[in-house]
């Protein structure tokens, strides 16, 4: 199942986005998805594909590991 309500993956998307002073909409436009998708990834409802995670990291100028971590 692709959906994910209990986070298998923790993310610091919100923090990284705030550091770049970027809205969800602005990030969504740069990575080619909708704002809703960014919101659902940020809230841990969905786990992005490797390609999307790499795009996010590229736009937010950090590594994928800095954006997403496995829970302890």
């Amino acid at each position, binding site marked *: 199942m692709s*959906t994910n309500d209990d986070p298998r993956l923790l993310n610091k998307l919100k923090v990284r986005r705030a550091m770049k002073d970027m809205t969800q*909409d602005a990030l969504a436009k740069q990575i*080619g*998805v*909708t*704002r*809703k998708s960014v919101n659902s990834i940020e809230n841990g409802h969905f786990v992005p594909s490797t390609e999307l995670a790499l795009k996010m990291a590229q736009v937010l100028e950090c590594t994928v590991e800095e954006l997403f971590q496995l829970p302890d």
Partner: protein
Amino acid sequence: MSNTQLSPIEQRVDANQRLVAFSAATGSILLAIQHIVIEAHGPEWLSVSSSMASAAAWLLFLVAMFKNQRIFKTEDGKAYRAQLEGDEILQRIQKEAFTWGFAVMLMIQVVMILTFSFFDPHFLSIPVAATSTMAGGIGIAVLRYQILWSR
């Protein structure tokens, strides 16, 4: 616009999408009710009213589809459509909604065959089976899609 607030185009598309989805689900459920009432020799007023309500729901579906076309012809609409087309999360949601709908259709078929062929084989007519299967599948697919997309 705040960070998580819906943009006007998102609001318009979402509202219209809900109208498309729920009118299709309502239309198909009412159509199934109409055929069940006919097959069960129920009151005529019930079959006529469910038939008319179903027709109204399908008319609403057509209007919403037409409105959808108009929304996506605007500049904002075109840009949003491009975002939607490349959205992997939306594609996952669509696949999952389709899978749920299809699974429910199969389940209804099995339940109908097992139940009605045992109790009342005459009740298992093609119009009842087809419309009930369609209604169940569309209803669940629509519901699943809306739940996932509105999170």
